C-alpha cells in the first residue's frame, strides 16, 4: 500500500508567453491506492498540477516520477506520452471529446492507441461499460444519441478502459444532477477500492469530506496545504483565509459548538456521521 505512485520534487511550470508561474515549487508524494482531492480557486494551478502528472505538460524545472516514469524538463516527448499507459484523465465535461460512430469504438479508442490486441480491447470495452453501469447493447449505439449523463459515463468508460493505475478527474460531477453525481462518485470510490490511485479536482467540499483520504489546497500556483480533510476542516479560520467553505455536516457541527452544544467528533465528514453524533449527544441528555 505504501508504495509511492507519484513523487514530485521542486516542480515548476511556466506557460509560454506569460509572466507568472502557474506552478511554484510543488513537493508531493502520493501513494498507490490513495484518494486525493485537489481544491483551490479557479486559476490556482490545480489543472496545471494534474496535467503535469499526466505528462500533458512538460515541467520547466524540478522532477516528477509517475509510476516509475521519470520526468524532467529535458525528458523526450515519447517518454512523456508513455505516461498515458498508466494514467487516465477524465477532463471537465468529458462528453465533449466523444467522436466515434459507436459507443464501443469510442471506448476502444484509448486501448487502441496503446496498441492492445483486439481480444484484449473487446474485453476491456465490455468491462468498462459494465463498470459505468451501462447496458451492453449500447455498444452499437451512436454516442451522440445518448442523454448527457449517459454520454459522460461513456466518456469515463473510455478512460477506464485503459485500466489506469492512476485516475485523474477534473470536476467530474460538474453539471450533473444529484442522482448522477452520487452514482459517479460511487463509481470512483469503487475504482479506488480496487487499488487505483485517484486524484480528483473539485469545488464541492462535501465531496472532499466524504470521499478523499487526503486533500491538497492550492493557491496562486503553490500547494498551501497537504493534509487530511478532518484536519483541514478543523481550522475554520484558515479555511476562510483560503476562501473555501466548510462542508455542510462540519458547518452544522461547528455552529452547534458555537451555541454551546458539544459533539464528541467536531468534524463529522458525512451526513450519516453527523446524524450519529447528534443521536449520541441527544441520548446523553435523555439518559441523565
Amino acid at each position: 500500500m505504501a508504495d509511492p505512485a507519484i513523487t514530485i520534487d521542486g516542480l515548476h511550470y511556466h506557460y509560454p508567453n506569460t509572466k507568472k508561474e502557474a506552478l511554484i515549487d510543488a513537493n508531493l508524494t502520493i501513494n498507490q491506492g490513495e484518494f486525493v482531492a485537489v481544491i483551490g480557486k479557479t486559476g490556482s494551478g490545480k489543472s496545471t498540477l494534474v496535467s503535469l502528472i499526466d505528462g500533458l505538460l512538460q515541467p520547466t524545472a524540478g522532477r516528477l516520477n509517475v509510476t516509475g516514469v521519470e520526468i524532467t524538463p529535458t525528458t523526450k516527448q515519447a517518454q512523456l506520452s508513455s505516461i498515458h499507459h498508466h494514467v487516465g484523465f477524465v477532463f471537465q465535461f468529458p462528453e465533449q471529446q466523444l467522436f466515434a460512430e459507436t459507443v464501443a469504438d469510442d471506448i476502444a479508442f484509448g486501448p487502441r492507441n496503446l496498441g492492445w490486441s483486439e481480444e484484449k480491447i473487446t474485453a476491456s470495452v465490455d468491462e468498462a461499460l459494465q463498470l459505468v453501469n451501462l447496458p451492453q447493447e449500447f455498444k452499437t449505439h451512436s454516442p451522440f444519441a445518448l442523454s448527457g449523463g449517459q454520454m459522460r459515463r461513456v466518456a469515463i468508460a473510455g478512460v477506464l478502459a485503459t485500466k489506469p493505475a492512476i485516475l485523474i478527474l477534473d470536476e467530474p460531477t460538474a453539471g450533473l444532477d444529484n442522482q448522477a453525481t452520487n452514482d459517479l462518485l460511487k463509481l470512483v470510490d469503487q475504482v479506488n477500492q480496487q487499488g487505483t490511485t485517484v486524484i480528483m479536482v473539485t469545488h464541492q467540499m462535501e465531496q472532499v469530506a466524504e470521499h478523499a483520504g487526503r486533500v491538497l489546497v492550492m493557491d496562486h500556483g503553490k500547494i498551501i496545504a497537504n493534509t487530511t480533510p478532518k484536519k483541514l476542516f478543523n481550522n475554520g479560520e484558515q479555511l476562510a483565509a483560503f476562501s473555501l467553505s466548510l462542508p455542510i455536516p462540519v458547518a452544522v457541527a461547528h455552529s452547534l459548538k458555537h451555541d454551546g452544544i458539544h459533539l464528541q467528533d467536531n468534524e463529522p465528514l458525512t451526513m450519516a456521521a453527523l446524524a450519529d453524533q447528534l443521536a449520541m449527544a441527544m441520548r446523553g441528555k435523555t439518559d441523565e
Partner: protein
Amino acid sequence: MNNKIVFGSYIPTNSVLHRLDPRMKLMMCIGFVVLVFFVNNLITGAWLALSLLLAIKLSKVSVKLYWQGLKPLFWIILITVVFQIFFSSGGTVYWRWGIMSVTHDGLINSLIILYRFVVIIVASTVLTVTTQTIQIADGLSWMMKPLALIKVPVNQITLMLSIALRFVPTIMDETGKIMKAQRARGMNFNQGNIITRVHHLVPILIPLFVNSFKRAEELATAMEARGYDPNAPRTHYRQLIWHQVDNWAAVWSSLVVVILFILRIFF
C-alpha cells in the same frame, strides 16, 4: 495551442491608429491593397513600402509581431514564388530543364509577387492589430449599408459576421482542450505517416463540429428567447464617430495616392 499570438490578433497600444475610425482604416487598407497593383517600378514600390513602414511605426506595435504574422504564411509565399520563378517565361533564359526554366521575366515577376504578398499581408495586419474585430465588423456593416437598397440582408450578414468573429477564440480554446483530452487517451499527434496523421484529425474535428452545432443552436434559442427579430430595424450600442483625426488620415491617404501617381508618371 500554447502560442496565444494568432496571426493578426488585436493588440491594444492606444496609438493614433487605434483611435482612428474603423471605417477610415478599412478604406485605407482596401485602398492600399488596390494601390499595390499600381506599383510598376522600384521607386513607386519603395514609396508604398515607406508609407506602410510609417503606419507600422504609428501603430506602436513591435516589428517582431508583424514578422510573426508573416511566418505562418511563409510556405504559401515561398511555393508561389518558386512556381513563378520556374514556370513563367519571357526575356533572357538563364536555365532550362524540361518544362521548367529560369528566365529574366520570371525572376522579375516572382519578385513582384513576393513584394505584393508581403506588403498586402503586413497592411492587413496593421488593420487587424489596431482594430478590434467587432469594430471591423461595424465598419464593414456601415460600408454595406447601400446594399440594403438592392434587398441584401445587411443586418443579418453583419450579425453573422460578428458572431463568427466572436467565436473564433472560443473554438481555438476548445480545440486545445479536445487535443489535450485525446492526447490523454494515448493519441500521438507527432507519429506516423501523412495518412495516419490525417486520421488523427477525426477525433478532434468531430467533437469540434458537434460542439459548434450545439452552441449555435443554444445561441439561436437564447436570441429568440430575448426577442431577436432579424427584420427589425437595428440600433448600435457602439456608435462610430468620425473625428478630426480621421479627416487628417483621409488627407494623408490622398497624398499617398497622388504622390504614387506622380512617381509613376516621372519614372
